[in-house]
């Protein structure tokens, strides 16, 4: 007998479990199928999930208590011209300044496994079923219509819609003729190390900032610019995550010996970069090494970008849909956004009784209409970096690193981010309060390692804590919430022109940044002590405050469970 579901989701990673959760919430009979023994076992990344993923992603993540390794305030870029002579520039302009940092962040660093487990638990709590240790080997097609999946034991599971979240390889989608295999030029192989380090050392040496390295090819310090992400170092809670990545092939040239190159880069950076050699190396030891491929160039290829991500009865999401960002090299926000959209379309399609591609086309239309997805998969800055490198032009290299990974980023990211902001405000102005509470809640959770499904969610709050900060927070945020609710009709109306006006934000930044930069540099010297003082005050307040201040769903259930999600194979 064949099992039947409304929705089958292939893969319980970042995208798959977000889609399953939403479908299950809507009352659809939903099944997630995961090939690994435990959810997250096979998910690899060096991971900062940028803040826009949380602000504009699934509600349950924004309003929940997901696990983090460390908030991050931004990026410090080392632009290395001659490592032996110590000739390098630093661009640290893309950082949230104090007093906003570390509560207001650029993003959150996390290991993939606990985060995917957290999401999958939420989907299961919502009613989705989960089968682990189960590999889907094929998709069932009846007269061209996808109507389920075939498992490795030959059993078949029928469904009205299949959501394919199997990852960048897209083996099943390629096999079923839904999309083509990506060329090696579209794939970047990421070689990843995890180093254990004492938290106190980490706080002092790396703090909340990511470190990126960029260098000329012949330096063998970081993989070639524009065709790899260079080299990235993430501070986690008690560990340093290190990733270097390189395109599998450049412009139809010979495939490079990546094994040899990665070893060379890794040896050079860890023995020559002063930060690593003098500060990090003596205090860390390697815990893990692994690798994975990412399709970060799909959005830059007009033909690949045009490929449809749906067919009769099936929708591809996240990496399976080629949505890895070439802009900031992040895949999770687009996986969440596409999962949200796919679930919405699946729910609508099932309710309308039409799961054919004429209906599911809505999915690709909404992906194309998503300002952040389109911006993030379309940036051509990598080609600029490559050009600067080939020209061996320091000025150009600095300029393009600044425009990709420094404050110059705002000249191409501000418009899509503002568009999404106003789109959300138009829907519900009270979202602003939820965003603010999210920052505070996430930071407090990180301080106390207090995430859903952990015992520390039930920690005892000090009854003798100072209450002034809490009173101030209640008045400010409560007052703001009240104003947003009273003025909601006007705010919603204003959000419409603001949405359209945000198109001028990017060009405006091009004019304003050169003026703002020197002013900021001058001001930050005298203002820095004040910023640090205020930041420390806020951190102390968040540390001791009653967590209910930051909750957005009163009475939210807290379940104490531990261990990996591993349901028995059916």
């Amino acid at each position: 007998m064949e099992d039947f579901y409304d929705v089958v989701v292939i893969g319980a990673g970042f995208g798959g479990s977000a889609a399953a959760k939403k479908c299950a919430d809507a009352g659809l009979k939903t099944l997630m199928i995961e090939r690994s023994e435990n959810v997250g076992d096979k998910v690899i990344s060096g991971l900062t999930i940028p803040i826009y993923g949380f602000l504009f992603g699934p509600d349950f993540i924004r309003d929940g208590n997901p696990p983090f390794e460390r908030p991050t305030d931004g990026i410090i870029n080392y632009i290395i011209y001659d490592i032996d002579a110590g000739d390098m520039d630093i661009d640290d302009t893309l950082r949230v300044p104090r007093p906003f940092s570390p509560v207001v962040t650029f993003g959150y660093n996390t290991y993939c496994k606990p985060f995917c487990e957290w999401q999958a638990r939420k989907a299961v709590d919502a009613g989705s079923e989960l089968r682990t240790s189960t590999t889907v080997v094929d998709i069932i097609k009846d007269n061209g219509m996808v109507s389920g999946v075939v498992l490795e034991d030959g059993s078949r599971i029928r469904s009205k819609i299949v959501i394919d979240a199997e990852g960048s390889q897209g083996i099943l989608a390629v096999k079923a003729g839904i999309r083509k295999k990506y060329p090696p030029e579209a794939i970047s192989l990421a070689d990843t190390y995890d180093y254990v380090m004492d938290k106190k050392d980490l706080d002092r040496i790396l703090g909340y900032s990511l470190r990126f390295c960029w260098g000329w090819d012949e330096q063998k310090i970081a993989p070639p610019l524009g065709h790899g992400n260079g080299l990235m170092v993430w501070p986690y809670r008690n560990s340093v995550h290190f990733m270097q990545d390189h395109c599998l092939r450049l412009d139809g040239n010979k495939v490079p010996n990546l094994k040899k190159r990665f070893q060379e880069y890794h040896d050079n950076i860890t023995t020559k970069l002063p930060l690593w050699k003098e500060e990090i190396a003596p205090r860390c030891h390697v815990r893990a090494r692994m690798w994975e491929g990412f399709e970060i160039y799909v959005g830059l290829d007009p033909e690949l970008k045009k490929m449809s991500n749906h067919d009769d009865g099936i929708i591809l999401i996240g990496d399976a849909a080629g949505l890895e960002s070439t802009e900031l090299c992040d895949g999770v926000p687009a996986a969440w956004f596409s999962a949200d959209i796919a679930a919405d379309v699946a729910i609508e399609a099932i309710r309308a009784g039409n799961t054919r591609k004429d209906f599911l086309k809505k999915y690709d239309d909404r992906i194309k209409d998503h300002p952040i997805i389109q911006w993030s998969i379309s940036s051509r800055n990598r080609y600029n970096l490559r050009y600067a490198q080939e020209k061996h032009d320091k000025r150009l290299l600095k300029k393009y690193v600044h425009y990709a990974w420094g404050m110059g980023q705002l000249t191409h990211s501000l418009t899509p981010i503002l568009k999404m902001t106003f789109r959300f405000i138009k829907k519900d102005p009270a979202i602003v309060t939820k965003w603010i509470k999210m920052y505070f809640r996430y930071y407090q959770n990180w301080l106390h390692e207090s995430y859903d499904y952990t015992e520390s969610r039930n920690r005892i709050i000090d009854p003798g804590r100072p209450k002034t900060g809490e009173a101030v927070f209640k008045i400010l945020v409560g007052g703001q919430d009240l104003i947003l609710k009273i003025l909601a009709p006007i705010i919603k109306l204003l959000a419409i022109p603001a949405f359209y006006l945000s198109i001028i934000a990017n060009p405006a930044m091009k004019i304003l940044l050169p003026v703002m930069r020197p002013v900021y540099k001058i001001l930050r010297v005298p203002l820095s002590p004040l910023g640090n003082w205020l930041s420390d005050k806020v951190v102390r307040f968040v540390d001791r405050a009653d967590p209910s201040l930051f909750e957005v769903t009163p009475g939210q259930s807290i379940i104490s469970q531990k261990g990996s999600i591993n349901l028995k194979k059916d």
Partner: protein
Amino acid sequence: MIKTHDDFPGVEWIDGTGDFIRVNSSKCTGCGNCMKVCLGDCWEIVDQKAQIKTLATCMECASCWYVCDAGAVDFSWPKGGTGYRSDWG
């Protein structure tokens, strides 16, 4: 059975994957692309043909499949609950 490898700490490989990567020798040109991109050292060239040396250090990235211009490499997912796993990805 679970295996580890000294060169790749923090990763475990669970037995029983099956032959999830296969090579069609008649299509293989012996170019060695698969060997060059494999960080797990899973490939070797014997008599100018690529062949799999081991799948016990494969991280299932499919790079060998992507770079095979001759279309000689067939990649599928290993059996459920087998292959690599790590807590540190």
